[in-house]
């Protein structure tokens, strides 16, 4: 498409069963009752000038530009605040209206810089447009009066400027921060002529304020007051392409607005079903990594990891790699080879990597980052409900009455969903938070959790079973739902189990550290408060009982009947952009795409017939097993696409030892990441801006990723994998990624109705898309569970083997921040580092005091597996005995400390519980020093001469 801003209807869309018909400027228009006259006019192609109205915000009625005349009524009401009524006859243009509007414009322009030609918003400014629409030619008041033209620009935010001299005090930014983002960081300070937009207190600028840089205010601003720095530097975009964000699992869609091959800005797409025109600091602004100087765009190889890299041609890199793979396969068999797919890559790319492993390497040794995040979700929901995915779409939360957030921090990890959740909470829904930390949702502007169960890390199953105990023994179970939808005998067994005294909140209180009465109140609220919806994250899955916890959550939803309709459900908040998709595409070593076990002869045969190969019927190795097998010499070659297991996986020393033991490590990535320090081949990757394919978000929504610029490395990632397969002798000839999707839909029943053409036409589809659900499935298990009857699973609390003691008396739990993403490979290469330049250790004041530690002090964090140093931040967000940090920075490498303990069913690491000690320190650990030195040495590159 050429460059046009998205159409703005002035006020939000209204949903109503009643339609009203009216006449606007002689045109008949029918709209839902409650629709504003402004929107009704826009719907039939009309245009009413306005400045304070935009369709992402509720009508405000302050600018007095959108006045209209209504036959039979006196005055000139504002069209933004006047609802359309049956039979109304409206006129949007008249001499009187023109005079009024021009008068208003004169007032605005009398206090506005007349620098349109040099203004960054020139030709993209609603004030300029309005002036043109009303035919403003002069300002009767002159420009010499008191004005705001001398006010200084606030450039403190790295991505946008605030120039108050251009502000027209329309409050759109303030309302966007309130209504859309829900942070309420902005306000209009002062009155009358002194009114001005203010970020926080008088001493604050945008950077020091509560602003979370979501960009909603910038998007809402009708002038150049709030403007992206990139627009100022580059100029107005000339075209826009709709694509999908490559950060978290919310799956926001954006208009990538371009000038030539240069990305000017990412503007959230109002028609995006996941984000409805909202964004966060990562998706909106943190895309600069795509052109970062660290980006590697040429293939490189080396014989051993102590050598410098040598740049080579694609032909040499691929033939060398294929030869090495074929040699190892001939020497040690197919099961000595494996691969790791990327949840940052497209479905099509994931599909090809798992196909390369199964059909090319000849093993099932394929795994993905979901191993270390949501593999327990797949296991737990598959056992109880019959499918490995969340049950709702994001919009469902707007029908929830009680929201239970367990082990998730949506405002940091899934900020755009969090904004919608906060909107629902502001409307009156009740909130239960189960988390060891006091996350922001517990108490923030206009939001306060009804219950915060600050449990001891590692006791999720005990807490949820105690809630089930309260629900069952207090006779709050939804017996009708259970009889209709679940196996009644299994329910009775489960109910008998949870009703045992040993599962009561009172008996478990010493274990969970959750006051029994508070827990009972939370259970009652969830069971009886109306539509109850559960949202959970890695605080559920990354435990030795991660799968049990997921099943315990599924049990709670079933026992209360909170499944199978809008406003309820079990919703895993997926970490990476395409972690749902990478799981769907057959990235687990025991199952083919669509979650079908590899041992199933019929399913296997369908792939064998399509791929013309024989497939190994035995499960392959999971990532931790690959590393174990490498140490005994039976696993020798690994192809890693778009993941950095050295930094992201637990027990870094063990990961390093495993990688070091391999004969061939192939890293396919944008940067020389930490894993690449142990690699022999580096295949340069492409960013999400440089490829076409699809991502599937946490609500099973499949959306197009569209190429907006040519790959800097010359190939999209699927093309690299195909070239490697061809070099190994495989007859692959996909000419575009749409052909890969055709193969996916041919072989995966839940994707049967999916194609790029259909996604282009419809925007998105939520799987399953099959003959039973031809238009997709926003809500699952509506008339029955996928597995038939819902299955109650007995989940007994089994304490983790990771115990505190005199040597390691504290419990470490890890998590993420808003501004950084996963291992930080992308966000550390953007200005987002201004908010989070290093990993910090949160520690309770009592624990800090006991150790003589103050805010900002360096401390040594040690567990039985390793130690690192980082600075302390003293806070009562964490309970005494609990410390918390992030894993975004390789210089800290928090996973040096985490252990090999993992979920019993899936081996998802127990990141959330590590026994540690913290002591004052005055410098980096021995490991940090040696790793920094090793890393620098490992990244040496012998460039091609003359380049």
């Amino acid at each position, binding site marked *: 498409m050429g460059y046009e801003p998205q159409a703005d209807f002035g006020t939000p869309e209204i949903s109503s069963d009643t339609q009203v018909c009216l006449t606007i400027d002689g045109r008949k228009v029918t709209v839902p009752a409650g629709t504003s006259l402004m929107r009704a006019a826009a719907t039939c192609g009309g245009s009413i000038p306005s400045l304070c109205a935009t369709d992402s915000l509720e009508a405000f009625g302050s600018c007095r530009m959108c006045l209209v005349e209504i036959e039979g009524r006196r005055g000139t009401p504002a069209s933004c605040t006047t609802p359309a009524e049956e039979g109304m006859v409206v006129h949007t243009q008249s001499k009187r209206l023109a005079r009024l509007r021009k008068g208003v414009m004169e007032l605005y322009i009398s206090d506005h810089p007349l620098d349109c030609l040099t203004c960054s918003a020139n030709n993209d400014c609603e004030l300029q447009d309005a002036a043109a629409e009303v035919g403003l030619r002069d300002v009767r008041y002159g420009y010499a009066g008191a004005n705001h033209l001398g006010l200084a620009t606030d450039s403190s935010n790295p991505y946008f400027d605030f120039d108050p001299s251009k502000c027209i005090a329309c409050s759109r930014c303030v309302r966007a921060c309130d209504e859309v983002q829900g942070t309420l960081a902005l306000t209009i300070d002062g009155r009358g002529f002194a009114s001005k937009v203010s970020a926080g207190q008088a001493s604050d600028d945008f950077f020091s304020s509560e602003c979370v840089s979501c960009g909603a205010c910038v998007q809402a601003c009708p002038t150049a007051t709030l403007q992206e720095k990139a627009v100022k530097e580059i100029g107005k975009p000339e075209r826009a392409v709709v694509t999908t964000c490559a950060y978290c699992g919310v799956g926001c869609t954006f208009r990538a607005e371009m000038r030539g091959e240069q990305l000017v800005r990412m503007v959230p797409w109002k028609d995006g079903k996941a984000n409805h025109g909202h964004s966060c600091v990562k998706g909106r602004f943190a895309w600069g990594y795509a052109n970062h100087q660290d980006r590697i765009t040429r293939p490189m190889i080396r014989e051993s990891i102590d050598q410098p890299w040598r740049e080579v041609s694609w032909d040499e890199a691929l033939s060398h790699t294929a030869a090495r793979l074929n040699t190892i396969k001939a020497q040690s068999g197919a*099961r000595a080879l494996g691969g790791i797919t990327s949840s940052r890559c497209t479905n099509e790319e994931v599909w090809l990597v798992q196909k390369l492993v199964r059909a090319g390497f000849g093993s099932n040794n394929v795994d993905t980052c979901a191993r270390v995040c949501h593999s327990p979700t797949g296991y737990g929901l598959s056992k109880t409900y019959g499918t490995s995915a969340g049950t709702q779409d994001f919009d469902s939360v707007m029908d929830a009455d009680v929201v239970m957030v367990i082990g998730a921090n949506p405002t940091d990890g899934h900020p755009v969903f969090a904004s919608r959740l906060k909107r629902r909470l502001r409307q009156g829904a009740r909130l239960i938070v189960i988390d060891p930390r006091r996350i922001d949702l517990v108490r923030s502007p206009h939001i306060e959790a009804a219950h915060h169960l600050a449990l001891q890390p590692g006791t999720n199953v005990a807490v949820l079973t105690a809630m089930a105990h309260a629900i069952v023994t207090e006779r709050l179970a939804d017996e009708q739902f259970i009889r209709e939808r679940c196996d009644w005998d299994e329910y009775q067994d489960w109910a008998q189990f949870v009703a045992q005294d040993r599962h009561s909140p009172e008996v478990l209180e010493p274990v969970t550290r959750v006051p029994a009465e508070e827990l009972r109140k939370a259970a009652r609220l969830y069971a009886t408060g109306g539509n109850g919806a559960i949202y959970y994250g890695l605080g559920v899955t990354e435990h030795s009982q991660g799968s049990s916890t997921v099943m315990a959550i599924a049990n709670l939803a079933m026992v209360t009947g909170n499944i199978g309709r809008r406003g309820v459900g079990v919703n895993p908040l997926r970490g990476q952009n395409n972690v749902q998709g990478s799981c769907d595409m057959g990235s687990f070593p*025991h199952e083919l795409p669509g979650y079908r*076990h590899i041992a199933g002869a019929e399913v296997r045969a369908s792939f064998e017939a399509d791929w013309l190969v024989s497939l190994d019927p035995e*499960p392959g190795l*999971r990532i931790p097993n690959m590393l*174990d097998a490498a140490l*005994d010499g039976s696993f020798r070659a690994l192809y890693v696409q778009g993941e950095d297991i050295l930094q992201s996986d637990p027990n870094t020393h063990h990961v390093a030892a495993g990688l070091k033991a391999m004969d061939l490590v192939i890293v396919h990535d944008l940067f020389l990441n930490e894993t690449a320090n142990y690699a022999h081949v580096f295949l340069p990757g492409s960013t999400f801006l440089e490829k076409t394919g699809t991502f599937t978000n946490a609500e099973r929504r499949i959306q197009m990723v569209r190429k907006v610029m040519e790959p800097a490395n010359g190939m999209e990632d699927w093309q690299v994998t195909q070239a490697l397969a061809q070099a190994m002798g495989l007859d692959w000839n996909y000419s575009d990624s749409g052909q890969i999707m055709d193969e996916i839909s041919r072989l995966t029943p839940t994707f049967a109705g999916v194609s790029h053409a259909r996604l282009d036409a419809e925007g998105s589809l939520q799987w399953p898309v099959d003959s039973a659900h031809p238009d997709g499935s926003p809500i699952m298990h509506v008339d029955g569970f996928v597995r038939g009857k819902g299955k109650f699973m007995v989940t007994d609390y089994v304490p983790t083997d990771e115990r505190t003691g005199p040597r390691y008396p504290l419990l470490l739990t890890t998590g993420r921040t808003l501004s950084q993403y996963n291992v930080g490979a992308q966000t550390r290469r953007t200005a987002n580092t201004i908010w989070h330049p290093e990993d910090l250790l949160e520690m309770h004041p009592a624990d800090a005091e006991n150790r003589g530690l103050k805010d900002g002090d360096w401390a040594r964090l040690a567990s039985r597996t390793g130690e690192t140093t980082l600075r302390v931040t003293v806070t009562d967000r964490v309970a005494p005995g609990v410390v918390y940090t992030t894993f975004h920075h390789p210089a800290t490498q928090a996973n040096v400390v985490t252990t*090999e303990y993992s979920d*019993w*069913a899936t081996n998802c690491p127990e990141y959330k519980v590590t026994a540690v000690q913290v002591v004052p320190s005055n410098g980096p650990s021995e490991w940090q020093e040696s790793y920094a030195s090793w890393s620098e040495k490992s990244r040496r590159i012998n460039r091609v001469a003359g380049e």
Partner: protein
Amino acid sequence: MEITRLRYMADQIARNLVPHGEALAIEGTFQHIRDYWDPRMKAAILADDPLALSPIAAAAVVMLAQPDR
């Protein structure tokens, strides 16, 4: 494969299935190992000393050894 690691994994699976009763726990542990473990892991646990495992895990491994399972 590091046998102590495999023993731990097998015992951990068994421990989490105990509430289902002994027979179901044995069957469940067997099925889990059958469905999720790579052949070299299965071979290593089959070759191991059953006394090094918990009784449920050991019984599951016996089941794993039966060719008709």
